[in-house]
């Protein structure tokens, strides 16, 4: 099933729901045992069984009555409130071939939302560029999933980015401890981004950062004499990538390494992904984090 986690294959699926389902189920089928966990003494609600759930949590009484599989959910599991913050600025629309960073990010967002809601966690979605474009507050019911997936299906990369501003602005709205899942290319002033992400940690929130770049942005595999035009501005630069490639790769590598180092210091999960990275990596990172919360 591994090939079904290839972003290019996922992109061919028609709806975001299918994409999310495909990714999550493709991921789970690769596991020896379900990593869905959650124990509580206090029953909270039922949710429909999904592949990978432990059978011991099946409510056989409900099955006897309705002939459907339901899983019992407990209070502790439903306490997790997550926000997926997705950068939809113009730079996220860049793609060298295959899919854009925004598409890739939306698949991750959809999969995570799908998984979280199926697990009974509440999940919200925040779409932003230099302003907050859409804020869907966290809910855990199934109908909420289709709201999120609908929003993710109609994304269009536009506007300038100002992540640090958005992060600072949005942090004021969070009252309760929340899992923040940040999806962005982070192509802005690095110091400001690091500072504003770290703010969430100071406020006792959990943060997972998915740093998404296109392969070309990472290795600059372009040749010839090129006039580069910046997507989010009118800035241009004429240069020969073949000459500057070595220096560029060094800079990008330093850029990524700095994020990794600084976030690690603050116990912030950081994953660097390029648009050709298999999508299960994002889910693995999420589950790992979820386990520790």
């Amino acid at each position: 099933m591994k090939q079904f986690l290839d972003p290019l294959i996922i992109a061919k699926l028609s709806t975001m729901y299918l994409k999310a389902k495909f990714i999550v189920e493709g991921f789970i089928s690769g596991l020896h045992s379900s990593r869905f966990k959650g124990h509580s003494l206090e029953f909270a609600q039922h949710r429909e069984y999904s592949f990978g759930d432990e059978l011991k949590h099946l409510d056989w009484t409900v099955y006897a009555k309705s002939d459907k599989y339901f899983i019992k959910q407990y209070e502790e599991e439903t306490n997790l409130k997550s926000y997926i913050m997705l950068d939809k600025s113009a730079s996220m629309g860049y793609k060298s071939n295959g899919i854009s960073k925004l598409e890739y990010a939306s698949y991750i967002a959809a999969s995570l939302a799908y998984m979280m809601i199926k697990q009974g966690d509440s999940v919200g979605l925040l779409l932003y560029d230099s302003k907050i474009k859409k804020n869907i507050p966290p809910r855990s019911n199934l109908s909420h999933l289709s709201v999120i997936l609908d929003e993710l299906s109609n994304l269009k990369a536009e506007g300038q980015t100002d992540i640090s501003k958005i992060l600072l602005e949005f942090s004021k709205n969070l009252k309760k401890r929340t899992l923040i899942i940040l999806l962005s290319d982070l192509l802005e002033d690095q110091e400001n981004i690091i500072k504003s992400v770290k703010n969430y940690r100071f406020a006792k929130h959990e943060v997972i950062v998915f740093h998404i770049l296109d392969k070309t942005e990472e290795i600059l595999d372009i040749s010839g004499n090129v006039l580069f035009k910046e997507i989010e501005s009118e800035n241009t630069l004429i240069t020969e990538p073949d000459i500057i490639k070595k220096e560029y790769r060094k800079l990008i590598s330093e850029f990524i390494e700095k994020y990794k180092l600084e976030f690690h210091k603050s116990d912030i999960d950081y994953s660097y992904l390029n648009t050709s990275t298999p999508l299960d990596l994002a889910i693995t990172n999420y589950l790992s984090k979820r386990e520790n919360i």
Partner: protein
Amino acid sequence: MSFLNPLFLIGLSIVSIPIIIHILSRKKPRKIEFSYLKFLEIAARRAIKKFRLRQYLLLLIRCLIIILISLIFARPVIRYISSSENIETILLIDNSYSMNYYKDGITRLANAKESAKKIITLLKPGEKLSIFSFSDSLIPIVKNPTTDRRIVLSELENINLTHNKTDALNAIKESEKYFENKNTEKRIILFSDFAINGWSSKTSLANEQNKIIGIDVGDDNPDNFAVSGIDINNNSIGITIANYAGYDKRILASLYIDNIKYRDIFFNAESYKSITQNFNLKNISNGIHRCFLEIEPDKLTVDNKNFFAFNYQDKPKALLIDGNPQFSEFKGEVYFLNTALQNDTLTKVINYDQIDNESFDNYSIIFLCNVSELSRNNVIRLSEFISKNKNIVFFPGDKVKLDKYNTDMSSLFPCEFSSVLDGGELMNFGISDNAEIVKKVNIYKRFLLSPKLNSETLLQFSDNSPFLMKGNNNVYVYAVSANLIYSDIPVKPLFPILIKQLLGYFSSKEILIKNLNIGEKLTESSDPNISGVIYPDGKLTKSSIERVEIPGIYELKYRNKKNKYLNANIEVISGESDLKKITISELKKILGKTSIFKISADKYFEKNIKKILYGSEIYKILIIILLLLFIAETIIANPRKT
């Protein structure tokens, strides 16, 4: 620079190809939208400068490669001196005495001749050349330009060393006159040791534009020691030895008198300094001695010897006869005279009463002071004394009996004693520097002296009456006394001057010795009284001599006076013995517009002179440069991959 295959220079036009390729390779940029330019800008800033530099360097190297390939095929030749077909060559060969310097068993002159022969064989057959030797003057050897190599080579062998100093600038300037055709290209090939002294004359070549090829037969670190001077003062000799080496040296010098070694002297001569030692000669007979001083042998022997004639004379012995002795010596007749003579003579004072017992043979001068009269016997004794070329000086005084002086004794005197006059004023005795000294003298009384035939008035009073007279029999008579009765002259500064002057008259008849530099013209050469010359080797010639060419002692024989001796030596003091070389920059400064190419007459001489005469092909160097450029191009075009 010229080219043997100039047609290949057309290839230089290809040099534009890499430039065109470079220009055309700049494609129009294609537009790409990109998410973030910041890292691109930084990377471009860092990498592009290095890249551009490398690109331009590559372009330059590629252009140079094309140029070099064209040049190699065109076979460039560097010509140090133009070699047109219409050229005249003069060979100037230094035969000054410094060219006698020996090294490896060969003199510099011999080395110069060998080098000249090689050049003569290398010159184009039709090329005309003439040969001159030079030291302080230019001597034609083959004066008229000729293409006959046999004549030139044979005459070359006839060039001999001289004892003269070098004047290369004069030789160059003089040689100009011998170029046959004004329109031909002129070339001088000068063979010399290039010692600095040879280029120090004032001769100007400022307007000359000829080309000189200098063949250097000198050494970079020569050493030489020389006798640079002999000074003779009375019986004392001052010897100066010069060290022209780069190190200190204890030098042995031997003095020979009449060909017998008189003594050895050691000189501790410091590097590039002179040292002088003085000593008195003793225990040799009076009269002329032929001497020479010789230092130990070195590489240049000609300046190791200095010849000089030496007239040895003991201090003359003078007998002072006091005709009016006093109890107080100070009031006597000879007190002041004796004092004035002390330095230059050995004196003895007697009273007139003792004259009969004193032998005159021991003396060369007798002073008679206020002697009243002389016996007949003593007049005869004194006459015999002066007949031996000895001198008598009379100072009259109050005791003098004029009738006796003018009669019985008159045969001795150059004058008659007429009368005693009061007062008088001395004329300036040619001692103009001390005119005041003469004026401050007071004359109280004086004898009026009337000159006889064949007498000579040496000094006068202002009324033209004699103050000092001399007879042809060597008798001198003063008009005043030697004490303070007639004048205050004996206590005035004038007195020692007068006495010195008097002794000078005695010595004027002594033998003359003159120092002369080799090559210097003799001022006496046209003197008709010269009856002959005795050369250093003892040969006598009946004719005079214009200039001396060989060091030694020459004796000029006169018909009417005593012989004169000439100490002829090489002119060490001119600096010719200092063999330090002139630097090429100094040489170029002196020569002005005249260009010079100097090469050494060493083992590479033949190769180097060929280069100078006919130029040298440089394709080998160009090939090496081309290979280096290829290597550089490969390295730069393929930077190390990381």
